[in-house]
Protein backbone atom coordinates (compact mmCIF):
# COMPACT_ATOMS: atom_id res chain seq x y z
CA UNK A 1 0.00 0.00 0.00
CA UNK A 2 1.44 3.35 -0.99
CA UNK A 3 1.60 6.26 1.39
CA UNK A 4 -0.45 9.16 0.06
CA UNK A 5 -0.54 12.86 0.88
CA UNK A 6 -3.45 12.35 3.26
CA UNK A 7 -1.40 10.10 5.54
CA UNK A 8 1.08 12.91 6.15
CA UNK A 9 -1.69 15.49 6.51
CA UNK A 10 -3.34 13.27 9.11
CA UNK A 11 -0.11 13.16 11.15
CA UNK A 12 0.18 16.96 10.95
CA UNK A 13 -3.45 17.30 12.03
CA UNK A 14 -2.98 14.92 14.97
CA UNK A 15 0.09 16.82 16.17
CA UNK A 16 -1.69 20.16 15.86
CA UNK A 17 -4.80 18.94 17.72
CA UNK A 18 -2.79 17.30 20.48
CA UNK A 19 -0.84 20.54 20.84
CA UNK A 20 -4.02 22.60 21.16
CA UNK A 21 -5.72 20.20 23.59
CA UNK A 22 -2.55 19.85 25.66
CA UNK A 23 -2.06 23.62 25.81
CA UNK A 24 -5.54 23.94 27.30
CA UNK A 25 -5.13 21.06 29.78
CA UNK A 26 -1.55 21.29 31.04
CA UNK A 27 -0.63 23.49 34.03
CA UNK A 28 3.14 23.76 33.63
CA UNK A 29 4.45 26.74 31.63
CA UNK A 30 7.38 24.78 30.20
CA UNK A 31 5.06 22.00 28.99
CA UNK A 32 2.82 24.59 27.33
CA UNK A 33 5.82 26.01 25.45
CA UNK A 34 6.89 22.51 24.34
CA UNK A 35 3.34 21.79 23.12
CA UNK A 36 3.28 25.05 21.15
CA UNK A 37 6.46 23.90 19.41
CA UNK A 38 4.77 20.57 18.65
CA UNK A 39 1.88 22.50 17.06
CA UNK A 40 4.41 24.34 14.91
CA UNK A 41 5.90 20.98 13.90
CA UNK A 42 2.46 19.81 12.75
CA UNK A 43 2.09 22.97 10.66
CA UNK A 44 5.57 22.45 9.18
CA UNK A 45 4.75 18.85 8.24
CA UNK A 46 1.67 20.13 6.40
CA UNK A 47 3.75 22.76 4.57
CA UNK A 48 6.37 20.24 3.45
CA UNK A 49 3.69 17.68 2.49
CA UNK A 50 1.81 20.11 0.27
CA UNK A 51 5.06 21.32 -1.26
CA UNK A 52 6.19 17.77 -2.06
CA UNK A 53 2.91 16.49 -3.47
CA UNK A 54 1.41 19.59 -5.08
CA UNK A 55 4.35 21.85 -5.98
CA UNK A 56 7.24 20.16 -7.74
CA UNK A 57 8.87 23.31 -9.11
CA UNK A 58 9.20 26.16 -6.61
CA UNK A 59 9.04 24.27 -3.29
CA UNK A 60 7.62 27.28 -1.47
CA UNK A 61 6.46 25.09 1.42
CA UNK A 62 10.04 24.07 2.21
CA UNK A 63 11.12 27.73 2.45
CA UNK A 64 8.14 28.74 4.58
CA UNK A 65 8.91 25.79 6.83
CA UNK A 66 12.44 27.14 7.30
CA UNK A 67 11.04 30.57 8.24
CA UNK A 68 8.67 28.93 10.74
CA UNK A 69 11.55 27.03 12.34
CA UNK A 70 13.50 30.30 12.79
CA UNK A 71 10.51 32.20 14.17
CA UNK A 72 9.59 29.29 16.47
CA UNK A 73 13.08 29.17 17.95
CA UNK A 74 13.08 32.94 18.55
CA UNK A 75 9.61 32.82 20.11
CA UNK A 76 10.69 30.02 22.43
CA UNK A 77 13.82 31.88 23.54
CA UNK A 78 11.84 35.06 24.32
CA UNK A 79 9.06 33.13 26.08
CA UNK A 80 11.52 31.21 28.24
CA UNK A 81 13.30 34.41 29.25
CA UNK A 82 9.98 36.04 30.21
CA UNK A 83 9.09 32.87 32.13
CA UNK A 84 12.44 32.99 33.96
CA UNK A 85 11.92 36.63 34.94
CA UNK A 86 8.39 35.96 36.18
CA UNK A 87 9.42 32.79 37.98
CA UNK A 88 11.77 34.86 40.13
CA UNK A 89 8.74 36.76 41.44
CA UNK A 90 6.11 34.00 41.52
CA UNK A 91 8.30 31.03 42.57
CA UNK A 92 5.97 28.65 40.73
CA UNK A 93 5.58 27.22 37.22
CA UNK A 94 1.81 26.84 37.51
CA UNK A 95 0.27 28.70 34.57
CA UNK A 96 -2.74 29.86 36.59
CA UNK A 97 -0.48 32.17 38.61
CA UNK A 98 0.80 33.84 35.44
CA UNK A 99 -2.23 35.98 34.72
CA UNK A 100 -0.38 39.29 34.58
CA UNK A 101 2.81 40.51 32.92
Amino acid at each position, binding site marked *: *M*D*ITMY*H*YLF*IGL*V*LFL*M*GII*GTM*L*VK*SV*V*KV*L*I*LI*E*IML*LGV*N*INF*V*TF*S*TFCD*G*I*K*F*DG*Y*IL*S*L*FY*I*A*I*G*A*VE*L*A*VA*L*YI*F*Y*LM*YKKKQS*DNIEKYNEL
Partner: protein
Amino acid sequence: MINNPIIFYIASFLIIMSTFGVLFSKNVIYSLLSAIVVFFTGAIFFYILGSEYNAIIQAAVYGLAVPIIIGVSIMFTSLKKDTYQEKMIHYILIIASGIFILAFVYLLMMSMAMNPNTFNIREITQVNFFDVMSAFAKGIFINYVWAFELISLLLTIVIVGITVIKRRGV
Protein backbone atom coordinates in the same frame (compact mmCIF):
# COMPACT_ATOMS: atom_id res chain seq x y z
CA MET B 1 10.93 11.05 -1.49
CA ILE B 2 10.89 7.63 0.16
CA ASN B 3 7.58 5.83 -0.11
CA ASN B 4 8.07 3.04 2.40
CA PRO B 5 5.03 2.18 4.57
CA ILE B 6 7.13 0.48 7.26
CA ILE B 7 9.20 3.61 7.94
CA PHE B 8 6.10 5.79 7.78
CA TYR B 9 4.06 3.74 10.25
CA ILE B 10 6.96 3.29 12.68
CA ALA B 11 7.66 7.04 12.60
CA SER B 12 3.94 7.82 13.01
CA PHE B 13 3.62 5.50 16.00
CA LEU B 14 6.76 6.99 17.56
CA ILE B 15 5.71 10.61 17.09
CA ILE B 16 2.17 10.09 18.44
CA MET B 17 3.32 8.06 21.45
CA SER B 18 6.01 10.62 22.23
CA THR B 19 3.44 13.42 22.03
CA PHE B 20 1.33 11.50 24.54
CA GLY B 21 4.50 11.23 26.63
CA VAL B 22 4.87 15.01 26.55
CA LEU B 23 1.25 15.42 27.61
CA PHE B 24 1.03 12.88 30.40
CA SER B 25 4.49 12.85 31.98
CA LYS B 26 4.41 14.23 35.51
CA ASN B 27 8.06 15.19 35.46
CA VAL B 28 8.93 18.05 33.10
CA ILE B 29 12.28 16.46 32.27
CA TYR B 30 10.53 13.35 30.92
CA SER B 31 8.29 15.63 28.87
CA LEU B 32 11.39 17.28 27.47
CA LEU B 33 12.94 13.93 26.54
CA SER B 34 9.70 12.88 24.82
CA ALA B 35 9.70 16.22 23.00
CA ILE B 36 13.23 15.53 21.72
CA VAL B 37 11.94 12.25 20.25
CA VAL B 38 9.01 14.15 18.66
CA PHE B 39 11.32 16.73 17.08
CA PHE B 40 13.73 14.11 15.72
CA THR B 41 10.84 12.07 14.33
CA GLY B 42 9.61 15.26 12.66
CA ALA B 43 13.03 15.45 11.00
CA ILE B 44 12.54 11.86 9.80
CA PHE B 45 9.20 12.89 8.28
CA PHE B 46 10.88 15.78 6.47
CA TYR B 47 13.53 13.42 5.20
CA ILE B 48 11.12 10.81 3.85
CA LEU B 49 9.12 13.61 2.23
CA GLY B 50 12.21 14.52 0.22
CA SER B 51 13.34 17.68 2.01
CA GLU B 52 16.77 16.74 3.40
CA TYR B 53 17.69 20.35 4.11
CA ASN B 54 14.61 20.89 6.29
CA ALA B 55 15.35 17.62 8.08
CA ILE B 56 18.88 18.71 8.97
CA ILE B 57 17.70 22.14 10.15
CA GLN B 58 14.90 20.55 12.19
CA ALA B 59 17.29 18.07 13.82
CA ALA B 60 19.89 20.74 14.56
CA VAL B 61 17.55 23.46 15.85
CA TYR B 62 14.69 21.55 17.46
CA GLY B 63 16.52 18.29 18.17
CA LEU B 64 19.55 19.79 19.87
CA ALA B 65 19.47 23.56 20.46
CA VAL B 66 15.90 24.06 21.68
CA PRO B 67 15.97 21.15 24.21
CA ILE B 68 19.19 22.53 25.66
CA ILE B 69 17.56 25.96 26.15
CA ILE B 70 14.47 24.37 27.73
CA GLY B 71 16.63 22.10 29.91
CA VAL B 72 18.68 25.02 31.18
CA SER B 73 15.51 26.99 31.95
CA ILE B 74 14.12 23.97 33.86
CA MET B 75 17.33 23.80 35.87
CA PHE B 76 17.11 27.47 36.74
CA THR B 77 13.47 27.36 37.76
CA SER B 78 12.36 23.99 39.12
CA LEU B 79 14.94 23.26 41.79
CA LYS B 80 15.36 24.22 45.42
CA LYS B 81 18.68 25.74 46.41
CA ASP B 82 19.66 23.18 49.06
CA THR B 83 19.83 20.21 46.70
CA TYR B 84 20.70 22.21 43.61
CA GLN B 85 24.16 20.77 42.90
CA GLU B 86 23.12 17.17 43.46
CA LYS B 87 20.00 17.35 41.33
CA MET B 88 21.68 19.40 38.62
CA ILE B 89 24.15 16.57 37.90
CA HIS B 90 21.21 14.16 37.72
CA TYR B 91 19.37 16.34 35.22
CA ILE B 92 22.49 16.94 33.13
CA LEU B 93 23.10 13.19 32.91
CA ILE B 94 19.53 12.52 31.79
CA ILE B 95 19.63 15.24 29.13
CA ALA B 96 23.11 14.26 27.91
CA SER B 97 22.17 10.58 27.59
CA GLY B 98 18.95 11.48 25.74
CA ILE B 99 20.83 13.74 23.34
CA PHE B 100 23.48 11.06 22.82
CA ILE B 101 20.91 8.39 21.97
CA LEU B 102 19.06 10.68 19.60
CA ALA B 103 22.30 11.84 17.98
CA PHE B 104 22.95 8.14 17.31
CA VAL B 105 19.54 7.89 15.64
CA TYR B 106 20.42 10.98 13.63
CA LEU B 107 23.69 9.40 12.48
CA LEU B 108 21.78 6.27 11.49
CA MET B 109 19.38 8.43 9.50
CA MET B 110 22.26 10.18 7.74
CA SER B 111 23.87 6.85 6.88
CA MET B 112 20.57 5.79 5.35
CA ALA B 113 20.66 9.02 3.36
CA MET B 114 24.11 8.21 2.03
CA ASN B 115 23.14 4.66 1.03
CA PRO B 116 19.36 4.37 0.53
CA ASN B 117 19.57 0.72 -0.57
CA THR B 118 20.84 -0.43 2.84
CA PHE B 119 17.38 -1.28 4.13
CA ASN B 120 15.82 -2.09 0.73
CA ILE B 121 14.02 1.22 0.60
CA ARG B 122 11.95 1.69 -2.51
CA GLU B 123 12.76 5.20 -3.58
CA ILE B 124 10.58 7.33 -5.82
CA THR B 125 12.57 9.97 -7.62
CA GLN B 126 9.89 12.64 -7.64
CA VAL B 127 12.08 15.17 -5.89
CA ASN B 128 15.53 15.93 -7.20
CA PHE B 129 17.98 17.15 -4.57
CA PHE B 130 19.60 19.72 -6.86
CA ASP B 131 16.20 21.09 -7.86
CA VAL B 132 15.34 21.46 -4.17
CA MET B 133 18.57 23.33 -3.39
CA SER B 134 18.09 25.54 -6.45
CA ALA B 135 14.53 26.26 -5.31
CA PHE B 136 15.83 27.09 -1.82
CA ALA B 137 18.37 29.55 -3.22
CA LYS B 138 15.80 31.21 -5.49
CA GLY B 139 13.20 31.32 -2.75
CA ILE B 140 15.39 32.74 0.00
CA PHE B 141 17.42 35.20 -2.05
CA ILE B 142 14.93 36.20 -4.79
CA ASN B 143 11.28 35.38 -4.15
CA TYR B 144 11.19 35.75 -0.36
CA VAL B 145 14.15 38.06 0.19
CA TRP B 146 12.06 40.56 2.21
CA ALA B 147 10.76 37.85 4.52
CA PHE B 148 14.32 36.60 4.94
CA GLU B 149 15.55 40.09 5.83
CA LEU B 150 12.63 40.60 8.23
CA ILE B 151 13.53 37.41 10.09
CA SER B 152 17.15 38.57 10.28
CA LEU B 153 15.90 41.87 11.71
CA LEU B 154 13.71 39.97 14.18
CA LEU B 155 16.69 37.94 15.39
CA THR B 156 18.73 41.12 15.84
CA ILE B 157 15.89 42.78 17.76
CA VAL B 158 15.64 39.76 20.08
CA ILE B 159 19.38 39.77 20.81
CA VAL B 160 19.46 43.55 21.44
CA GLY B 161 16.24 43.42 23.48
CA ILE B 162 17.44 40.65 25.79
CA THR B 163 20.75 42.48 26.28
CA VAL B 164 18.93 45.72 27.17
CA ILE B 165 16.59 43.93 29.62
CA LYS B 166 19.55 42.17 31.23
CA ARG B 167 21.47 45.46 31.66
CA ARG B 168 18.46 47.16 33.25
CA GLY B 169 18.33 44.30 35.73
CA VAL B 170 14.61 43.58 35.50
